[in-house]
């Protein structure tokens, strides 16, 4: 281990962290702009040209706001919770390849921080830790709404983690590796979304639940729980929760792009490796737009429906997806996988549709 490579790691880490922080700032702006457009409003347009300095203004406002710690809160955990929330969001991308190898100042630099042979498992591990911040924030606030938000979120995240984990297995099986680098390399001929349309869909739905985005934003449902787990938080601590949510959005979009949409690979990337991060950013922005679009379009799901959907629909479907993927691989007929999984998916949708219609007809809720 040379000093040079240590510096390389430090610089790369700093770049990733700052990239994510900037991404967070402008993602909030993007979201507000897109929502405004969809709702035929104008959106932020005062701070700077086209409102470009709006995130900056927000940050300054939040930093200078008064921080209140409720007198009967569990102080240590109350302070710890936002920090615990942000850290997993920041480190989850540590195993993600942002590009191939570029030559800079005469050094071969790989555009990724680490290549773990258990990369996918690392992501699941970090994702499973990220529940703690929310749960602890909810518990330590000593507030009913916060508490309910915390309980809801832990139940929801545990439930959807199963489907999420299973949707990882498709790409793992297809590439024969848990390393994200190998998974990207295996997608050179064809993106995995072609083989794994249902897997990608499950992944996307489950991540929406994992990052508590609409329509799964039960933990912070404003109308029911005022603001859920972060009701008692203000100032920078509140900003940390906010930050974690948006960074997680970016992170899961990047992971989705890597697992199912070819990662940093796209046209001309072979000749100019520097294009890798750019393509990845493009894919991430498209996926993020999808998330915002969903938020603008779909109403929040009722809580019991949310759990039923996770356990009774998404989880079995994810299992079936793994099963049929394995069948396709064993028979060495990969084209079977999308056919079978889509057939199962449609069948499941029709079955749920029929049973739901019956329930509606008989007025049993």
């Amino acid at each position, binding site marked *: 281990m040379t000093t040079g490579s240590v510096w390389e790691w430090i610089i790369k880490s700093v770049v990733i962290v700052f990239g994510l922080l900037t991404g967070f700032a402008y993602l909030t702006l993007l979201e507000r702009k897109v929502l405004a457009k969809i709702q035929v409003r104008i959106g932020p347009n005062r701070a700077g040209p086209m409102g470009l300095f709006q995130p900056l203004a927000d940050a300054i406002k939040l930093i200078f706001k008064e921080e209140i710690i409720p007198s009967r809160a*569990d102080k240590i*955990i109350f302070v710890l919770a936002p920090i615990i929330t942000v850290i997993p969001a920041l480190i989850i991308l540590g195993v993600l390849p942002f590009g191939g190898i570029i030559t800079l100042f005469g050094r071969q630099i790989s555009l990724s921080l680490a290549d*773990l*042979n*258990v990369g996918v*498992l*690392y992501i*699941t*591990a*970090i*994702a*499973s*830790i990220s*529940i*703690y911040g929310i*749960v*602890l924030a*909810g*518990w330590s606030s000593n507030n009913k709404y916060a*508490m309910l938000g*915390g*309980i809801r979120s*832990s*139940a929801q995240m*545990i439930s959807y*983690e199963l489907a999420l*984990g299973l949707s990882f297995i498709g790409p793992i099986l297809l590439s024969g590796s*848990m390393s994200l680098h190998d998974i990207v390399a295996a997608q050179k001929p064809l993106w995995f979304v072609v083989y794994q349309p249902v897997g990608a869909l499950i992944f996307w739905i489950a991540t929406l639940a994992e990052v508590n985005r609409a329509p799964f934003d039960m933990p912070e449902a404003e109308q029911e729980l005022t603001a859920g787990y972060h009701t008692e938080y203000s100032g920078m601590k509140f900003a940390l929760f906010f930050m974690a949510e948006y960074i997680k959005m970016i992170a899961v979009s990047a992971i989705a792009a890597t697992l199912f949409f070819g990662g940093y690979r796209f046209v001309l990337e072979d000749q100019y490796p520097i294009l890798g991060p750019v393509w990845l950013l493009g894919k991430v922005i498209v996926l993020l737009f999808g998330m915002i679009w969903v938020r603008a379009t779909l109403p929040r799901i009722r809580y019991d429906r949310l759990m039923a959907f996770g356990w009774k629909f998404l989880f079995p479907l994810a299992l079936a997806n793994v099963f049929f993927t394995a069948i396709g691989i064993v028979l060495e007929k990969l084209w079977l996988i999308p056919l079978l999984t889509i057939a199962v998916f449609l069948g499941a949708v029709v079955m749920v549709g029929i049973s739901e219609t019956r329930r509606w007809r008989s007025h049993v809720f």
Partner: protein
Amino acid sequence: MTPLQIIFIIVAVITLFAAIKVVSSRNLVHAALWLILVLFGIAVFFVILSAGFFAAAQVVIYIGAIAILMIFTIMLTRRVARDSGAQHNSNWWAAAVLSLLLFTGLSWILSRWQGFQSTAQPMLESADPLRQLGEGLVAPGGYLIPFEVASILLVAALIGAITVAWERK
């Protein structure tokens, strides 16, 4: 001392301290949080032993699933989350003596073994432990039967848990 040994000692001290806090803290949520620190320390040990898979599995299963369920359960019963009773009964000295005896006995036994002096061989670069693990679990000449028995065990435990927890009218 190598850097690895220093890391090991630091992590071991933290883990042991957290383990003591697990049993001694009066607030159940705090105890659960200390437990998470213990589990995390063990994950670090796996990393030190270059068993990355087990480290990740440890985090996913123990921290991400088991401990969170504990916290979840505690939160649902928050009124009794604090313990105000005495933390030890009149027999504590007997337990202390027994533990001390066990500890000295084990340390003495372990000190008799020469194997601690030898260093482990570094893992081969070409070896793919993950693949070996996966194949070992399903190979008929490997751990196929224990693997399947584990699934029987889990199904039985699942059915048992439902039987115990199910509220009958």
